[in-house]
């Protein structure tokens, strides 16, 4: 019995060795040294300093929402991006659909597939500020910049990314266009200019009053007023539905935690909120001015994103008096 097991074991080893066939690109990626072909510069980022090519051609981005948005806005379509986990169809930021042809998916946002990142042969990697654990490995593939995200001031983030990829001028143009659109939006508000808009995001276990986020930054820039009760808040807080005074406003915009994954659980959370017995306590509810908005869009960020939100808002607020 023992001898048979040993022979079987050896046979397995040989079978595996014989059966495997490898496939490897013949190019030697590590021999491409950016500093020998292009100019380079040193940039400071969230995790230190890195020397990057001045004119990156093949960018891989590890954030399929705001950072991908900035690159697409600058016409610098990356060769690879991470995607939302669990999505069957479109893996990147919902509002970017149709503009990401040629972008390879390189794994999930929380656990990017380092082999796929390497396979994309990037010359620059843009990562998230919290991805400290793989920063060393990423730098071995290509110079890596951890974009310092504030998750609220998208104009500043946009300028940063544009500077890194060498498109600072174009970014200024686009920001000016965005400001023009903000002006146009303000003039269409009409009677709604005084409406106090509360933005809340419903999670399965709590309600978050959005205060310092992409959405609220945009609203403030668009001249949309916030409820005075929320003015004292410095950052988003989680509350329960009983705190109607904090949640309430003339208009309430509600969206869920969903950005693609776990859609059912999150949709139920919004439903639970709207059907809650205490929901009727809210003035906005009684006036019929609670609007559910699409979280796949509203939970995002970016400069192209901002324009789409403005369109949504015009529909919800514009022309009401």
């Amino acid at each position: 019995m023992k001898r048979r097991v040993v022979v079987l074991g050896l046979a397995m080893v040989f079978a595996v060795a014989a059966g495997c066939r490898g496939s490897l690109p013949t190019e030697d990626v590590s021999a491409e040294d950016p500093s020998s072909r292009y100019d380079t510069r040193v940039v400071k980022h969230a995790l230190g300093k890195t020397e990057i090519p001045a004119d990156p051609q093949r960018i891989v981005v590890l954030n399929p929402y705001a950072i991908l948005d900035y690159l697409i806005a600058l016409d610098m379509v990356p060769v690879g991006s991470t995607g939302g986990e669990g999505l069957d169809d479109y893996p990147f930021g919902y509002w970017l659909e149709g503009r990401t042809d040629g972008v390879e998916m390189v794994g999930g946002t929380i656990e990017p597939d380092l082999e796929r990142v390497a396979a994309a042969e990037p010359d620059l990697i843009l990562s998230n500020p919290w991805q400290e654990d793989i920063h060393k490995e990423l730098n071995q593939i290509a110079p890596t910049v951890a974009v310092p995200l504030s998750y609220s001031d998208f104009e500043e983030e946009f300028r940063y990314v544009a500077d890194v990829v060498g498109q600072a001028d174009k970014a200024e143009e686009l920001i000016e266009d965005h400001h023009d659109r903000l002006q146009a939006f303000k003039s269409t508000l009409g009677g709604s200019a005084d409406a106090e808009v509360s933005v809340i995001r419903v999670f399965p276990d709590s309600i978050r009053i959005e205060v310092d986020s992409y959405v609220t930054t945009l609203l403030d820039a668009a001249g949309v007023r916030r409820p005075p009760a929320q003015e004292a808040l410095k950052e988003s807080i989680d509350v329960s539905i009983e705190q109607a005074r904090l949640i309430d406003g003339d208009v309430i915009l509600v969206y869920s935690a969903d950005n693609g994954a776990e859609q059912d659980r999150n949709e139920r959370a919004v439903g639970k909120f709207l059907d809650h017995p205490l929901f009727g306590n809210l003035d906005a509810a009684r006036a019929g001015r609670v609007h559910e908005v699409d979280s796949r869009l509203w939970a995002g960020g970016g400069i192209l994103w901002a324009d789409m939100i403005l369109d949504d808002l015009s529909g919800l607020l514009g022309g009401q008096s």
Partner: protein
Amino acid sequence: MSSRHLDVRLVRGRISMRLSLPTMGAAIISVLLVGTVGAWAMTLGDFRLSVDEVVRAVAGDAAGPADFIVRTLRMPRVLVGIGVGFAFAASGAIFQGLVRNPLVSPDIIGVNAGASLAAVFLIVTRGPMSLLPLAAFAGALIAALAVYGLAWRKGISGGRLVLVGIGINAMAIAGTTFLIVRFPIEVVSAAELWLSGTLYARGWEHVAYIGVALALLLPAALALSPHLRTLQLGDDVARALGIRVEVLRFSLLAVAGGLAAAAVAAAGPIGFVALIVPHIARMLVGPFTAGVLLLSGLLGALLVIASDVVAQHAFAPLSLPVGLVTAAVGAPYFLFLLFRMNQRT
């Protein structure tokens, strides 16, 4: 089984061992299997490599992409898997032998939970990630010391140790849950990933952690194993044979706790390995001995790297944490064990 032994005498009789042939045979086969599965694991991925390309890369003799992929990504991952699998299973074997309860393991008496609490705390407070293994190790040791200290009453009894351990475990888990609920969802996602035990992004520093721990603790464990067998005859008999019971128990707990703590520090709390693998080892070759300890370790290593292959590649392009697969395998087996034990009593 008493006839199938090999008596070894070295250094003119000063080192004398009795090696059980079935155990040695099983151990050798396990080593071969670990080597095979490990090498195979390194050929898999988006870049498919052949076995000799892997071997050449390991020897430092390969061109660009293969070199990076094997030496920076795949090799540390497999080595850490082998190391933590070994450490968890060995730790479980010692605990089960010491407490003489086959249902005990560092998973449930607070070691893993203490490490998790410390690690999650570091993650949600956005502390430096480089300190994560250290924090986890410290958390595990503090929990183990707390269990030992609270269970001491003029000595340690196995039953009391387990009960106190379960209590500490519950407290640590409560603390961890509190942190998860209280902190914003962006930081909590990273913590939840660590909590399931994962070999993702394991680098050579993790190999070093678990390697050093094994190098220090495994010889100690092997040296103490014969005394553990004496202890299993009962405290009074052991004392009569000259064993210092409490010192021995403390040493064994320290070694077992240290092995589990190092494993959690390197890869997070990979569940069920410490609980299930010693059972399998004992089922194959009999009750606890140093050889069974080694065999448990090897089988633990095999379980972890095999589970990691499944976790990484069975559901491509989605990559699972290895702890999910070991739980999926371990939980049903554990239920089966309970069922069998119920039937026998």
